[in-house]
């Protein structure tokens, strides 16, 4: 090397050495800033993304029938979810996710927004109950959206499918309207009963969600569990329903629309409650597809979502004659022995009212009039009373009120009165005497629910006890699986005169012995009841009725109780558009009575089974 160059080079190398150590010092400062000054902040972030608090959904209680057969079971299901803390913030990410999953982007964006605002709690469920293809899709989509997770949560399985659709109802995510209506009562994403007993018994059935603190890796997979508060399952409970009797009702109704209600006369327990067409609650657990909306919600013709047993209001037709007779006897406008002549028709207030039998029944007492379902006899009774008299009697015997059954949105029975018409028909508020004549045979503005009708016949069967129909039998002791009977809802005594009762009972007996329902009599058991044939309930005047009548055949009804000597059950059957009550409704009642008293003690029907195959089902348990 050039000797002159060396000192210069050494000087410059010395500068480089200083720069090298300067570089090291600079990096030390950078790391000191991150690791010493901002350590706490980053430690918190590292902790937050690795340690998660995950809610654990509590299973709802099981619902058993009165014999302990499961009506609802819980199975494990996989849901595609986003945990609250992982909710995406960017609109374009949400839009891309919606596209990848085939969801409505606007709805998803709104949902993400509301979940983010709500803070901690249940994850946002994107897709419920993943099947194999759903899991495959979820895995693919997760590669692009790492914040997605899969949650294992209990899911309802309704055994028997359509067997008790309306009685059971179904569960679903609490909707925004309900949350607004009852602030603080629910949390976002909570699964609640939406219909039927699932809704009515929600507070008993729902459990308390647990939570666990877990360590997750970058994919959100649980690596370790730091401890958990177990979910408290909801209480399992017994219903008053008898699955076998319910099955008989379902099969007897077949394709017909209508309702069946059977009450236990001991306490008002509902032994069967079937509304036809029924629905399969299992179908409502997943998000409603358009297909489902078409089939169920938007089906205005057969109205499968309507619980006809508690929400269907039907003209009771001749089944109402018992109340009219009761009113007339109490008021004293006739005696049991009073004879009324039926010529097949009779003129009241200048209008002809016809009897079902055009040739006329001749001279009849009340028992005979009930047995033959003579209209003229009851026209005559109605003409001797005011409509408010009939209403007062109905009120006295509980027919004007809701029965109080533990199902949501029960409709009220409609027994017309002068006050009612003033309110209901403001354009024609005056009550016409001719209208009372129609009320006399359960037509006109009279409308009853099948449950209300069954309760009235239960009152006749018990000689004046006004029962409260109910589905809730009692909680299940979770250790012994035994029923803890709940106190039955109160029974109200009504001042039903035993002499009057005897006349009505005799009339009902004659109906089946030799009257309109003689074909449905059973040898072994004395079933008593009254047939009814009724037009649509919702008409106000004759012109309205005429329009309806063209479109619809009459509804067939049968209500009664059995056995006559010591009544145990009361029932009401309505078959829509089926024609004469004796030929369609009474045979169904006969099947119910036959099963309950004759077949069940010997050969009860097997417990209900679901047709849905559950891919994650645990091994079948021993029957209880």
């Amino acid at each position, binding site marked *: 090397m050039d000797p002159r160059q060396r000192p210069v080079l050494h000087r410059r190398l010395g500068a480089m*050495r200083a720069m090298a150590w300067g570089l090291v010092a600079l990096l030390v400062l950078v790391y000191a800033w991150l690791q010493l000054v901002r350590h706490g902040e980053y430690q918190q972030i590292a902790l937050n993304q690795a340690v998660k608090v995950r809610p654990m959904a509590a299973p709802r209680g099981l619902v058993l029938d009165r014999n302990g057969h499961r009506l609802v079971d819980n199975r494990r299901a996989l849901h595609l979810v986003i945990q609250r803390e992982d909710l995406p913030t960017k609109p374009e990410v949400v839009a891309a996710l919606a596209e990848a999953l085939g969801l409505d982007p606007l709805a998803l964006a709104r949902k993400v927004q509301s979940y983010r605002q709500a803070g901690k709690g249940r994850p946002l469920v994107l897709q419920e109950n993943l099947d194999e293809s759903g899991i495959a899709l979820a895995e693919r989509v997760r590669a692009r959206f790492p914040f997605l997770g899969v949650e294992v949560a209990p899911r309802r399985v309704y055994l028997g499918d359509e067997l008790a659709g309306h009685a059971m109802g179904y569960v679903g995510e609490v909707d925004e309207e309900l949350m607004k209506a009852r602030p603080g009562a629910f949390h976002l994403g909570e699964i609640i009963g939406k219909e039927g007993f699932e809704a009515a018994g929600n507070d008993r059935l729902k459990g308390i969600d647990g939570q666990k603190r877990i360590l997750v890796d970058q994919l959100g997979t649980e690596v370790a569990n730091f401890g958990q508060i177990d979910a408290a399952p909801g209480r399992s409970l017994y219903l008053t329903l008898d699955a076998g009797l319910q099955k008989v009702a379902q099969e007897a109704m077949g394709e017909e629309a209508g309702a069946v209600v059977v009450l236990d006369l001991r306490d008002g327990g509902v032994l069967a409650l079937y509304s036809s067409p029924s629905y399969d609650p299992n179908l409502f657990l997943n998000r409603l597809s358009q297909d489902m909306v078409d089939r169920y919600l938007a089906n205005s013709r057969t109205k499968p979502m309507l619980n006809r047993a508690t929400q269907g209001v039907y003209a009771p037709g001749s089944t109402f004659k018992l109340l009219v007779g009761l009113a007339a006897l109490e008021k004293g406008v006739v005696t049991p022995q009073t004879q009324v002549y039926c010529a097949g028709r009779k003129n009241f207030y200048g209008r002809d009212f016809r009897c079902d039998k055009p040739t006329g029944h001749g001279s009849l007492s009340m028992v005979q009039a009930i047995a033959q379902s003579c209209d003229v006899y009851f026209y005559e009774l109605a003409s001797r009373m005011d409509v408010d008299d009939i209403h007062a009697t109905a009120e006295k015997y509980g027919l004007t009120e809701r029965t109080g059954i533990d199902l949501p949105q029960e409709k009220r029975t409609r027994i017309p009165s002068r006050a009612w018409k003033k309110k209901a028909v403001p354009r024609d508020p005056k009550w016409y005497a001719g209208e009372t004549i129609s009320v006399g045979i359960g037509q006109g503005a009279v409308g009853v629910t099948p449950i209300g009708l069954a309760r009235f016949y239960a009152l006749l069967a018990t000689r004046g006890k006004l029962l409260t129909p109910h589905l809730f039998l009692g909680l299940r002791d979770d250790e012994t699986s035994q029923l803890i009977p709940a106190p039955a809802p109160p029974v109200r005594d009504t001042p039903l005169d035993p002499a009057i009762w005897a006349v009505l009972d005799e009339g009902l007996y004659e109906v089946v012995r030799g009257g309109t329902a003689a074909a449905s009599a059973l040898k072994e058991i004395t079933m008593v009841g009254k047939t009814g044939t009724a037009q649509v309930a919702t008409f106000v005047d004759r012109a309205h009725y005429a329009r309806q009548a063209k479109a619809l055949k009459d509804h067939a009804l049968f209500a009664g109780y059995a056995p006559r000597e010591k009544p145990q059950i009361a029932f009401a059957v309505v078959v829509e558009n089926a024609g004469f009550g004796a030929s369609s409704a009474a045979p169904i009642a006969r099947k119910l009575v036959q099963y309950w008293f004759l077949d069940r003690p010997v050969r009860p029907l097997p417990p209900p089974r679901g047709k849905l195959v559950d891919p994650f089902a645990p091994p079948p348990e021993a029957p209880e």
Partner: protein
Amino acid sequence: MKERFRALDPRLLWVVLALIGLGTLTLYSAGRNTPQAGIWLKQTLWNLMGLGIMAALAGADPRRFFRKGFPAYLVGLLALLAVLVVGRRIGGSTRWFVVLGQTFQPSELMKWVTLLYVSQRLGSRPPDQVTRLDLLGAVGLVVFPMLLIQRQPDLGMALSFLPILLLIPLMKGVRARWIAALVVFVLLGGTAAWNFALKPYQKQRVMIFLDPSSDLQGKGYQVNQSRIAIGSGGLIGKGFTSGSQTQLNFLPVKTTDFAFSVWAEERGFFGVLIALALFGLLLDRILAAARAALSATEAYFCAGAAGIFALHLLVNVGMVAGALPNKGMVLPFFSAGGSSTLSFFLALGIIMGIQHRARLK
């Protein structure tokens, strides 16, 4: 053989062995419970091979290599051209030859070959006889392979050639107007590069560097997670194989670009101090070799090598801390990789040879 081991500068050797130790521990921890669990073992093989090469080169007369500077440079250029034609395309860039199932990155070696050749050219004459044309030629020798590498594209690698240009001020000194010229060049060049040369993903990286929180799920995710790892490590670290960011895979590419974050998370600021002190000593020892060098060529080579090591240190350690843009530049002895490891040891071997020759004198 004995002669060769005597040639190894013991103080430099201890620093290198210590850094290898830290790097191996880091890779062991980073690979745990991943498909790359054996990567520390594989890297150990590369390190042993590298140590062998280093020992072999240290015992040789370094002037032999400088004499081969020109043909080596030509072969290197041909290799860079060839890789563009027949190289394996991985992740959007063509950087690798595949030989016997092993990938080999010619640009790693070319960096040192270029340094070798440029040192030789500039050091062969006294500084006052080196003309501006010679300097321009030297700049051309550096920039040409950089352009080829940028074709792959591999900006980080191309930039790692820049320290070779340090030789010019080292030889000629620094004048104020040069610095002014450099500033103008960087500004103009930066503007031109932004508008014409940089790929969209490279621009994005710069944008994300300027605002790391702008893309937490995408490119910014990596640096953000790395900062969390480093910051959460604190003073003493979370303990070996106990870093949550590392072990739960929040930290990305942790066996290569982000290996230093693993060390920082699990060993904390104390660990970082140790590692940075070792790197400081490494630079110090290389510059000491430059000072001891018998010829200008050898001194230039050592100084350029120190510059290259320093740039890798600055860019990688700065990048994982989010203090510099996310450039794919490996950290010697920490990042796993065959080509880079062997190349670093090769350079260290020559440096030790230079020092050994000076010591013998």
